[in-house]
């Protein structure tokens, strides 16, 4: 055998070795993150470079990524690293929310300390869709009254605190009903609840689970890898609520959804459908500036209709002709209103401030009674300040028996 064959083979092996070494050295350096809560190194940031912090309350140095998202913390191969992630891109989807957002140290505390968010959100009407289902079944004679028996998913509630609360709901399966309208309802009309992705994307795109409200997507359709999706906030603008609300109407006869046909260019036209009637504060403020935590997230009980949970009215902030709106002074440093104000990026509250309180005792922590006796509200999403007056001492001619907002609309409604 010619000796040169050995030389050649050695040269080839050297070349291959150099190639392998070069390939190895060219690999990106692993970027380590050791979150203080878990103390276990994670390498997600090696690929996910420049990811913004998701919120001030969940800093990455404390939480890291894996504690919420799951996944293989040591893997640098995309496929393996993502293989054990919870809920895909959204760990707050209700199928996995208990492992991602729950736990006694996190968001599934007790009702006593008002930290039972997961249980509340999962039993709320926006999640169970029980109200719509009960109405349809009642209308088409499939049940004798409007008490909810079905929800989008089966769910039960061990502790029922309110008179109208229901103990359990079965999963709604439209195909089990005789009426063709109900079957059609099941086919066409069951995507407006927190567990479902909206049927059409674009401006109405939103996540499911907790992120349905708390991760407002940037304007426009969410692109793959859109950084704006990595957001958790309590400053939820009206546009996020409108991913389900104010998009159109259901036609009961054809059992189809008729989207609104206008093309609004400003806030006052965009906020509500053309058929709605509203006063100035109802479009100048965001939904969450009035609608309370209990209204939006539920009170822990399963209800049969939104009427059982919605209770805010004009008089909650404006009072009546004889009474000023109820208020309280914030004294406890651990008061819920202080904790919520601290989470919000634009509202500032301190002990000694006087805030309005609802009939059910929920503090309206973005309102304040100023020293000169006037009232101020700060928009939770915009930071805009609004001054408002109580009804008492004004020229209002309201009837004390007629306090629903439709009566206030008679005089105060805005013309578009």
């Amino acid at each position, binding site marked *: 055998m010619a*000796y*040169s064959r*050995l*030389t050649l083979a*050695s*040269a080839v*092996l*050297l070349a291959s*070795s*150099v190639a392998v*070494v070069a390939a190895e050295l060219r690999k990106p350096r692993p970027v*380590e993150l*050791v979150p203080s809560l878990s*103390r*276990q*190194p994670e390498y997600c940031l090696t690929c996910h470079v420049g990811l913004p912090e998701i919120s001030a309350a969940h800093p990455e140095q404390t939480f890291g990524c894996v504690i919420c998202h799951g996944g293989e913390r040591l893997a640098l191969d995309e496929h393996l690293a993502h293989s054990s992630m919870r809920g895909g891109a959204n760990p707050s989807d209700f199928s996995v929310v208990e492992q991602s957002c729950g736990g006694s140290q996190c968001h599934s505390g007790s009702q006593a300390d008002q930290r039972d968010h997961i249980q509340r959100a999962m039993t709320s009407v926006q999640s169970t869709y029980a109200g719509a289902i009960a109405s349809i079944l009642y209308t088409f004679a499939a049940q004798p009254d409007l008490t909810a028996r079905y929800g989008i998913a089966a769910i039960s509630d061990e502790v029922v605190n309110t008179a109208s609360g229901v103990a359990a709901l079965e999963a709604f399966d439209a195909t089990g009903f005789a009426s063709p309208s109900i079957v059609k309802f099941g086919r066409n009309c069951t995507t407006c609840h927190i567990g479902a992705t909206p049927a059409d994307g674009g401006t109405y795109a939103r996540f499911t689970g907790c992120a349905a409200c708390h991760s407002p997507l940037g304007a426009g359709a969410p692109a793959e890898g859109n950084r704006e999706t990595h957001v958790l906030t309590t400053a939820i603008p009206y546009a996020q609520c409108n991913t389900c609300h104010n998009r159109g109407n259901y036609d009961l006869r054809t059992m189809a959804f008729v989207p609104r046909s206008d093309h609004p260019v400003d806030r006052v036209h965009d906020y509500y459908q053309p058929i709605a009637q509203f006063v100035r504060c109802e479009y100048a403020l965001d939904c969450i500036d009035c609608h309370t935590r209990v209204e939006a997230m539920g009170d822990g009980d399963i209800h049969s209709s939104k009427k059982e949970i919605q209770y805010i009215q004009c008089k909650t902030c404006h009072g009546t002709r004889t009474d000023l709106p109820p208020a309280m002074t914030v004294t406890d440093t651990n008061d819920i209103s202080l904790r919520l104000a601290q989470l919000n990026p634009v509202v500032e509250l301190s002990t000694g401030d006087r805030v309005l309180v609802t009939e059910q005792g929920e503090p309206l922590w973005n309102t304040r009674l100023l020293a000169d006796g006037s009232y101020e509200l700060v928009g939770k999403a915009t930071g805009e300040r609004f001054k408002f007056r109580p009804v008492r001492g004004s020229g209002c001619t309201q009837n004390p028996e007629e306090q629903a907002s439709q009566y206030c609309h008679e005089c105060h409604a805005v013309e578009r």
Partner: protein
Amino acid sequence: MPRHTRRDFMKVITSYLLGLIGGLGIAGVVRFLAYESEPRRQTEFDLGQASDFPKNMPTRRDEIPALLIMNSSGFIALSLICTHLGCTVKDAPEGFVCPCHGTLYDNEGSVLRGPAAEPLRRLRTEVTPEGRLILYTE
């Protein structure tokens, strides 16, 4: 003088190539083995509210291990790791004694007797605006 054939040249070249490959291999193995797979030990310790520490009385914290004394001018933190070979020192009438090789320290950490040459290290402390005492071991 013996003539160098082409074959000899090839042999030399081959030896060099194999040597290079071997060198690369050894360098690779060394890099492979020199990787630190465990996260570094904690160097920052939150010891709680500074006001909870009794004045002028030493508090021994074995998990670090360190001794903390609060006096009029602030906190003194003494590392309880023997400067000889790293065992944790025990209390002794004179101050501290190391169970491994018998080094004796006084209450301030200076070496009284024993194989150790350096006194016990002073560690840096810091009180945060909220009043928490932070100890740094690095």
